[in-house]
C-alpha cells in the first residue's frame, strides 16, 4: 500500500476468509450456469434437426447436473462454515441485529438516506434476512433438483438417495409440484442477483467502504471523511 492510499483509509478489517470467498464465486458462476441451462430445460429453444444421434437436450441436462452437484457441495460447505468456520462468530453476531427492531429501523432508514448503517455483526438485519433467504433457495433448489435427478439416474448417488427423495416428492404432492417449485427457485435467484449487485455497489459508494473487492481480498475498509483529510 502506498502513502496516498493509506492516508485515505481507516480501520481496515478482515471480513471473509479465503474459503468463504472462493465458495462465493463458485456459487456465483454455478448459479449463473444453472439458470441458463435450467431455462433451456424448461423451454428448449435449440433443436439439432440434423440427426437424432446428436443428443443436444441430454447434453444441456448433463451440464445442469454438473453445475447442480457443484452447487450442492458448495452449499453444504458454506452452511458448515457459517456455524463452525473462521468468520462464523461475526456472522452469528448478526443474529442480534436480526431480532432487534431498532437495528431494522436503522438499516431501513439508512437505505432511504437517513443516517449511517451501524451493526453489531457483519450483516445488517435486512441484508442478513435476504442472504438467509437466498441460502434457503439454494437448499430448496438442491433438494428439488435431487428429486428430479433420482428419476433420471437410478444408480450411484441417485440409487442411494432414491427412497428418501421419493419421500420428499410425496411431501411436495407429486413430481409435478416438485418441478414447479424447482422452477420457482430459478426466479428467486433471478430477482436476488440484481438487487444483490446493486446494493453492494451502492453501499460501497454511500457509506464509503469496500465494495466488490471485499469478496476478492477479504478486507473491508472505510474511507476517511473529507474533514479529516483537510486537517
Amino acid at each position, binding site marked *: 500500500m502506498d502513502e496516498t492510499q493509506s492516508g485515505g483509509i481507516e480501520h481496515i478489517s478482515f471480513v471473509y476468509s479465503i474459503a468463504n470467498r472462493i465458495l462465493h464465486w463458485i456459487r456465483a458462476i454455478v448459479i449463473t450456469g444453472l439458470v441458463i441451462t435450467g431455462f433451456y430445460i424448461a423451454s428448449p429453444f435449440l433443436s439439432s434437426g440434423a440427426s437424432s444421434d446428436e443428443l443436444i437436450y441430454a447434453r444441456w441436462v448433463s451440464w445442469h447436473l454438473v453445475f447442480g452437484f457443484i452447487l450442492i457441495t458448495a452449499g453444504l460447505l458454506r452452511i458448515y462454515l457459517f456455524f463452525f468456520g473462521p468468520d462464523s462468530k461475526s456472522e452469528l453476531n448478526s443474529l442480534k441485529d436480526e431480532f432487534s427492531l431498532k437495528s431494522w429501523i436503522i438499516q431501513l432508514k439508512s437505505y432511504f438516506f437517513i443516517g449511517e448503517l451501524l451493526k453489531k455483526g457483519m450483516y445488517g438485519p435486512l441484508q442478513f434476512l435476504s442472504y438467509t433467504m437466498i441460502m434457503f433457495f439454494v437448499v430448496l433448489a438442491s433438494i428439488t433438483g435431487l428429486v428430479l435427478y433420482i428419476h433420471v439416474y437410478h444408480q450411484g448417488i441417485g440409487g442411494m438417495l432414491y427412497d428418501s427423495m421419493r419421500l420428499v416428492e410425496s411431501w411436495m404432492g407429486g413430481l409435478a409440484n416438485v418441478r414447479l417449485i424447482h422452477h*420457482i427457485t430459478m426466479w428467486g435467484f433471478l430477482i436476488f442477483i440484481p438487487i444483490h449487485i446493486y446494493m453492494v455497489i451502492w453501499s460501497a*459508494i454511500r457509506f464509503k467502504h469496500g465494495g466488490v473487492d471485499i469478496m476478492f481480498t477479504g478486507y473491508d475498509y472505510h474511507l476517511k471523511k473529507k474533514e479529516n483529510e483537510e486537517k
Partner: protein
Amino acid sequence: MNGFDALYAKAQERIAVLSSLPSTKEESVEQMLEKRGIERRDFMKWAAAITAMLALPSQFTPLFAQAAKLADRLPLIWLHMAECTGCSESLIRSDAPTIDSLIFDYISLEYHETLMAAAGWQAEANLENAMKTYAGRYILLVEGGVPTAMNGQFLTLGAQAKTGLSLVQEAASNAAAIFSIGTCASFGGIQAAAPNPTGAKGVDKVVKQPVINVPGCPPSAENIVGTLMHFLLFGTLPALDLYSRPKWAYGNRIHDHCERRGHFDAGEFVESFGDDGAKDGWCLYKQGCKGPYTFNNCSTERFNQHTHWPIGAGHGCMGCSEPNFWDTMGPLEKPLQSHLIMGLNSTVDKIGTTLLTATVIGIGAHAVASLFMNSKEEKEEKES
C-alpha cells in the same frame, strides 16, 4: 429358505387354501374358456404374460394358471362412487373378449352396478347379502371419488338413499382387501379438483383399512387384473410406493420407457400438432407432455390389447395417474410455462417477470434518488 422359495411356498399354500373353498360356478375356467374359443395354449401365454408383468420369475407361470382357475373362489364387490364408469369400460370393452375380461367375468362378481341384472330394492338386497355371506373374505373394488362435504350428502345411492361415504365405510369394514380402481377412487380425481365443492376424496382418506391404489384415467385392464391376480395368488398386498400404488405397475415414469425418448434427448420436439416433427414421431414435451412427471406403465403395457396408447397416437401424456393431476398438471396440452398458479391466475414466468421488472425499476429509482441525495449532502457539507 431364500426369497424365491419362500414366495413360491407362500403361493402354493395360498392355492391349497383357495382350492378348499367352495366353488361358486357350475363350469370350470377351462370349460368356460374353451366354450368361448380360447385354447389352453393362449391361456398359458396369458398366464406367462401376467407373471412377467408382475416382475415374477417364469416358474410362477403354472401357479398363476392354477390360481386363475380358482378365481371363482374370490367374491368381489365393486362399488361405484362419483365417477364416469370409464374404469369399468377400460376393463370390459375390447374388440373381442380378452382372457382378462373373461377371467374377470368368471370371478365371483357379487355386485357391480353396471354389469348386474338386478335393480332397485333387489340390487340393494344383493349387496347386503354379499357383504354378510362373504364377510371378511370379499375383495372390495371402488371406482370413483367419495364426496364428504355435508356428511356425504352429495352422493346418495339406491332406494334407501345411503350416502356413498357410509356405503364405502360399511363395505370396507369387512373386506379382505380394498382396491381403489382409477384416479378418482385413488386421489379424488376431477371431482376433487379445485375448488372441490363436494369435498371429494380418495377412498384411503375415508376408511381406516389399508387401500391399494390403481390410479389412471382409466387404468389399463392389465393393471386392474394384474393387481387382482397378485392378490389371488399371494393373498397379501404387493410392494407399494408412497402413494400406495403397486410398484410393478407404477415404479417407473412414462418418460423412462417412452418410444419418443430418443427424440427428447436429441432435442427434437414437435412445435405444433401436425407439423413435420409430429409426422416423424418427435417428442411431445413442448406440447405439454407430462410423461417426465408421471408414474405408470402405459409406455410398455399400452391399452386396447396392448396395441396403442396416447403418446403413440401423437398426444402427450396428461399425467392422469398422479395425485391431483387436474390441479398440478394443467393446462394439459401446454408445458409448465403455461401452468396457472392457483389463486393468482397467472403463470410463474409472468409473475417472475413482473417482480423482476419491479425490482429493476426500484433499483433505478433508488439509484437516481441516491445521485440527488449525494449532491445535496455534499452541498450541505461545503456550507457547514
